[in-house]
Structures are given as C-alpha cells and as structure tokens.
C-alpha cells in the first residue's frame, strides 16, 4: 500500500484533480462503450426478429 491513509489516497500527493479526472474519464469511456454496444445489439436483434415475424 503506497498511501498512509484514505485521505492521502484521495489527495494523490496533491495531484487529485489530474489523477482522478483521468481515471474517471477512463471509466466513463469504457462503461459508455459497453453500454452503447449492448444497446445497439439489443435494438438490432429486436428489429431483426420483428422483420422475420413480419415476413412469415
């Protein structure tokens, strides 16, 4: 463990703003991609099923 306590961990040696923004944005980006991709997949699957049903 590189930090003495939780406050030091949050403070990041005075660079909290930079470090946490970087990690925050990275999380948003990765989770965002995951959510968007899954949503399109679901929407497409639904569209395809509907199309199949209509054709029959």
């Amino acid at each position: 463990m590189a930090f003495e306590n939780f406050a030091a961990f949050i403070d990041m040696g005075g660079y909290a703003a930079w470090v946490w923004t970087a990690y925050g944005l990275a999380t948003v980006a990765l989770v965002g991609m995951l959510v968007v991709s899954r949503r399109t997949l679901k929407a497409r699957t639904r569209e395809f099923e509907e199309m199949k049903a209509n054709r029959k």
Partner: protein
Amino acid sequence: MHKFANPTQFMRIANAIYPWVAGICVLLFAAAIPIALMFSPPDYQQGETVRIMYIHVSSAWLMMMIYGIIAANSAMFLIWRHPMANLVARASAPMGAVFCALALITGMLWGQPMWGTFWVWDARLTSTLILFFLYIGYIALADAFEDSERGDKAAAILALVGSVNVPIIHFSVEWWNTLHQPSIIKASKEGVDSSVHSSILLPLFLMMGAFTMFYFALLVLRLRSELLAAKIRNARLSQIAGHSAAQPAE
C-alpha cells in the same frame, strides 16, 4: 484464412472464445485497478501522477493496435473482398476513436502538472491528434454514402493510406527530440532507466492486458450487431428489388 471469410464460421469461433476473453478481462481489471491506484509506489520524479500513465499508455497502445487491425482488415477487404474483414474494421473504428480521445485527454491531464501546459506542438502530440482525426474521418466517410458498399471501400482506402501515421506516432520520440517521454519499455530492457522499475511495469502490463481484452470482448458484441444490420439491409433490399422493375399498368 478463407475459413474466416465466412461470417457464420467466423462468428461461431468468435462466440466460442467470447466468455474466455470477457472473463480474463474482468480478472485483469480486478488486479490492475487496485495495484495501479494503491499498491504501486509513486514515481520519484513524477510523484503520484505516474498513475495517470497506466491509463495513458494503455489507451495509446490500444488506439495504435486498433488502427493496425483496421488497416489490416481493410487490406483484406479490398484485396479478397472478405466481408467479415470489413465488419471487423467498421466495428473497431468507434472504439479506436474513443481510446484515442482517452490517450489525448489523459496525456493533456498529465501534461499540465508535468510540463506546465496542456498542449505543445511536438511531433508525438501532433501525430496523435492526426490519428484522432483519421478515426473521425474514417467513421464519417464510411457513413457518407447512400450505397453502404461504397462507404466501406472508401473508408478502407483511407485506413490503408492513413496507416503511415502509426509508425510516425511510435517513432516520433526517436526521430525528433521532443518534450514527450521516450519509450520506457525498450529502455527498461536495456536496464538504462532506473526510474522504470518492475513496480511500475507490473500494473502497466496488467492494465494494458485488461484494455486489450476489453477491446476483443466488445468487438465480438459489436460484430454481432453489425452482422444483424447487414442481414436487415439485405432483407430490405430484396423486398424492394421485386418492385424496382415496376411498370405502368397495361
């Protein structure tokens, strides 16, 4: 090789490895995040900001790797007309753009405390920015045509021509003397740079691995939806084709 050109076969393999890739990805993140944020020591020069590096370098690696994948698939698509190669390239591009943006932003967030400025016009930064524009151009071009096949091919050509930029990004720190850090991985192999210690390399590699697995897992998901989109388009086309030779009533 040609076995992979068949969408059905390709997806069978992709779906089979998907759970493994996703599982490894979760495990790697579970290891990488705590080590990167808590257990690794601060750098003697850069202090705690070194933790930005784990994300910065991982995203930078991903953006270059993804561009390489897009370029290779574009070549396969143009030469052998493997439709699957095209779908891989199309599905990857938005992810590449996101990782590229992430590399740029984390670089800027690191640059402000380290260099005292968000941005300088040095070779690596400029070439990374150009890569970002190439991603945006690729995505815009692929969607710019009524006829989607034209978009695929135009974008593939752009991807191939743009691939000169990737080595430029990588070697820019050696070709021009810049503000940006030289390659740490190579330096460490030769044991030159004492600042690059295994305590830093371990979380870095873990994070890079996690990002890479994340990309491959998501790629499988995105391929499934690209394939569905193609099927839907195809069905629509054959629906209207019946009417296209329509005639006035006799």
